[in-house]
């Protein structure tokens, strides 16, 4: 217990008037647009500050209506980002159509995808505020439609929008029932299930699940120091990110956003999420090839 909390509780124990910021936040529901009302806590007392930019300016998109309220959706064609290989959709399609390596051929998730075609899959990656049982705030999705890859980001602009976010994810999965993840079997899907059970939001039930972590372990574990996504990114794809946000900072970045409504730090979270999904898609292509060895880091190379 921090000293300041102890002191505030002491005031209650002494029977004085409660300290802190008055009563409940303003009873108004989320206003349309990008900045829901925050009650008293958001006011900065004292010096004047320039108000932070609108979420829509930083992460253009729209409010998405679901049966559990609203959340924010940002959508863009994947090739909008420089550095993205435009042939990704094509390569994914070949990977899916060509005869796969044996281990993938036995994989139920791969089979479900193959059966339904390229457009039936959703590459999915969650950003959460903790390791378990803490709110989910962002879901990144990559999908293909008629040869074009699209990136979609669903965001709970504050904790009250999480149920809508979960509902939106369930809705996406109902339309694209095969999910491709990295460690989704142990993390992302159970996480969604727990939060949905908790908030009584619609559950996400994919028909097929291809978890690249399992594939990577089978395929490359003996030749790599570990099977973390960034390790695979470097050793298998030969790419490395610069200035990526540390995963451990993500929860606090979100909590701060909810408090001060400044969307600018969120850009790094979005970039991280997008990167993860892109890597996931490229790894999927790579995994479908039979005999390409994983390149290894030359000894003595500096780690950026």
């Amino acid at each position, binding site marked *: 217990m921090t000293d300041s909390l*102890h002191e505030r509780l002491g005031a209650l124990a002494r029977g004085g008037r409660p300290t*802190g910021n008055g009563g409940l936040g303003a009873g108004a529901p989320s206003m349309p647009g990008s900045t829901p009302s925050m009650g008293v806590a958001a006011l900065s007392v004292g010096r004047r500050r320039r108000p932070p930019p609108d979420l829509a300016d930083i992460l253009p998109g729209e409010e998405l209506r679901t049966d559990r309220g609203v959340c924010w959706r940002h959508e863009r064609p994947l090739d909008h980002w420089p550095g993205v290989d435009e042939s990704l959709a094509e390569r994914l399609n070949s990977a899916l159509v060509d005869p796969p390596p044996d281990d993938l051929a036995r994989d139920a998730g791969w089979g479900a995808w193959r059966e339904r075609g390229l457009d039936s899959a959703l590459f999915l990656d969650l950003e959460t505020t903790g390791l378990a049982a803490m709110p989910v705030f962002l879901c990144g999705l990559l999908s293909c439609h008629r040869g074009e890859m699209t990136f979609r980001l669903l965001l709970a602009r504050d904790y*009250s929008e999480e149920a809508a976010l979960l509902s939106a994810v369930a809705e996406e999965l109902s339309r694209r029932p095969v999910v491709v993840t990295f460690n989704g079997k142990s993390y992302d899907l159970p996480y969604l299930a*727990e939060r949905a059970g908790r908030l009584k939001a619609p559950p996400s039930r994919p028909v097929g699940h291809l978890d690249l972590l399992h594939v990577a372990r089978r395929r490359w574990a003996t030749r790599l120091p570990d099977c973390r996504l960034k390790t695979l990114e470097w050793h298998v794809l030969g790419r490395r990110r610069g200035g990526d946000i540390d995963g451990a900072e993500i929860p606090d970045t979100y909590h701060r956003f909810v408090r001060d409504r400044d969307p600018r730090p969120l850009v790094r979270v979005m970039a991280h999420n997008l990167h993860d999904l892109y890597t996931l898609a490229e790894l999927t292509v790579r995994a479908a090839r039979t005999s390409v060895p994983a390149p290894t880091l030359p000894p003595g190379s500096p780690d950026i």
Partner: protein
Amino acid sequence: MSADLTTPLPLRGHDFDAFLARITGERHYAGQVAHVGRLPERPARHAEPTAPLPEVLSRALAARGIERLYRHQAEAIDLARLGHHVVVVTGTASGKTLAYNLPVLEGLMADPDATALYLFPTKALAQDQLKGLTRLLESMSDAGTGPGADSEVDLIESIKPGVYDGDTSQSARRKIRDTGRLVLSNPDMLHRALLPYHGRWSRFLSRLRYVIVDEIHTYRGIFGSNVANVLRRLRRVAAHHGADPQFLSSSATIANPVELAEALTGVATRAVTEDGSPRGPRWFVTWNPPHVDRARVERRSGNVEAMEILVRLVREGVSTIVFCKARVVAELIYKYAHDELRRRDGALAGRLTPYRSGYLPSERRAIEKRLFDGELLGVVSTNALELGIDIGSLDASIVVGFPGTFASVWQQSGRAGRGHQGSLTVFVAYDDPIDQYLARHPDYFLGQAPEAAAIDPGNPYILAGHVACAAFELPLGPEDEELFGPLTSGVRNALEAENQLAPLGGLHYFSSTDFPAQKVNLRTISDDTYSIVDLTNGDRVIGMVDAISAPELVYPEAIYLHEGETWFVKRLDMDQKVAYVEPVSVDYYTQPVLDTSLRVTERREERWSGPERLTLNRATVTWATTMFKKIQFGSTDSIGYKNLTLPPQHLDTVALGWSPSEAVRNAVRADGRKPAEGLSGIRNLMITVLPLFVMCDRSDVGGVIDSSNLGHPTLFLYDRFAGGVGFTERGYTVWEEMVAEALRLLEDCPCVDGCPSCVGLPILRPAQHQDPDVMNGFPIPDKGAARVMLRSLLEP
């Protein structure tokens, strides 16, 4: 004489009158038997529930030797069927467990989706209950016959009970979460593992029909205050998933079982108190060790007396259990008794066993079996074993030293007595003020239990942790104020100011990366403790002491006693909360002198007690150790003193205030005595007497005389825990009885002018209080002043 150990016990059991006559008739008998109480035999009283039990249940019970139910079991079933929340308050071995197992099993059979959660204070108890339930369910499976038997068996199989605690494997946990219908657990697990992850438990919670809370008298003080909040969080989360479970509890005999059950659960509760189980005649002996010398100052060791009684009983073939206050005492008594038996009666030594906590279930079962077969005649244990763990019943119980509560004495005594046979309980008194007082007043053991269990779930320091946990579980809404109490909004605001909660759209969401359940320990208020570190041994931590006691025990240059060794405090770091000590061999001890003051910050309640004013307040107690005295061992002469400048400590807590009227003060002056001294003496008496009425220790409360608040000397008694946990609050309710008891204690004490056993400072609290109005303190206040003051209160 030696008893024939091979013939079966006579129907009526041992003749304890004859046994006692043999003892008191001996030449060396020194008058230890202070009192013999006899409780008559009580026949079984049976009853039928209003509607009969399902046949499969009655058949299963019959298969286990139970043809009829006792009336308290039938009553509990009836109340449970009507949907009431129930607390069953009957003695040990009264079949309390069936009183809640039967309605639960009936309910789980009637509704194939319904679930039940059982909460026990210890893991061992849960394991034992699992065994009992499994056996009952097996009998139910075997008993099923006739059409539909197969589907009935399937239904019974679906109720596979499972223990969910820290030792449960991950795969077992998953299975229980996904399919379990009857889950046995404990409050810590509920708090840390189930509630924070309630999304995984939605199936179980949405169908939760029953919550069993066993041995609720153990949920008192800080622990009880925390558990009360955990149970409220459970109700809240269950409601979210659509369930409103029924609470079925059990309690040992205490003064306020319904009040406690309702304070713990927040729901109106009905009590079942008429015990229908049979009881043979009971002998209750108070045994006071004799004085060792003619000066009649010291008494012989209670441990040695207990050992001798044990040896006697074992040699006469009376199966006996001994309860000791500390493990080291249990080991000692076992060893002495074992050696003595080996010396006198070779084979008998092997029929004695110690019983330690931490035994594996298999080890416990081995002991149980040997007791049941008559192979074992003696068990030496600590008080930890008094809870309902099934080791069967014995013929005699020896209670060595007052275990702290009367409820404990009864639990321990209840271990003796098989069916209709007679049983013997021997309470061996230590040379301690309370034990000696009880030796002179055995009516405490034989009358109604006067003590109550006290909790204060609204204590803001305790509530804060749980409000954070509740917000983590589900966003806080306006209805939570009603659930958690009037301080909820204040606590919520405090958490919001700390960025732990964020208000959004009328609700408060948990908004931090912390995992709040991790930070709440159900057995403490905060982790405000000092480590005691051995400088000469690589800074090894040798002990802990709470922050409130630290300035009294580990001030710089104090001689600190720890596990029988003396340590010198070289340095006290109050920021880091560390006391650095080194072992030392000295012939003196140190006694601190504390400057204590109290400031009332809010008056909560007030009333008249006769012509005197009694108040219940929120108050801040401030104290500082200003000096200490060095006192030679054995002589009580002060051989020096030293001043100290330690920063004062503050404690925001709850305090009872009592101001004697001018009339009473004049009565004391008229007798040529000082009212302030009288008050000091009464303060010390009240600290000793309060634990007779509420289940706490003397060291849990403090007292100070202060006139700065009201302008005249006022006695304040306060809980030595931040925010208060209900002890002095209870004292406020029973003040008049405390006054009567204090006078009784004072009159009873054979000293003339006062001593540490009555108006003096209790021996356990070495600190000498310097009250603000009392110059130089009174180590032993004038007994006469206290007497006059107390008498004038009781005489109208």
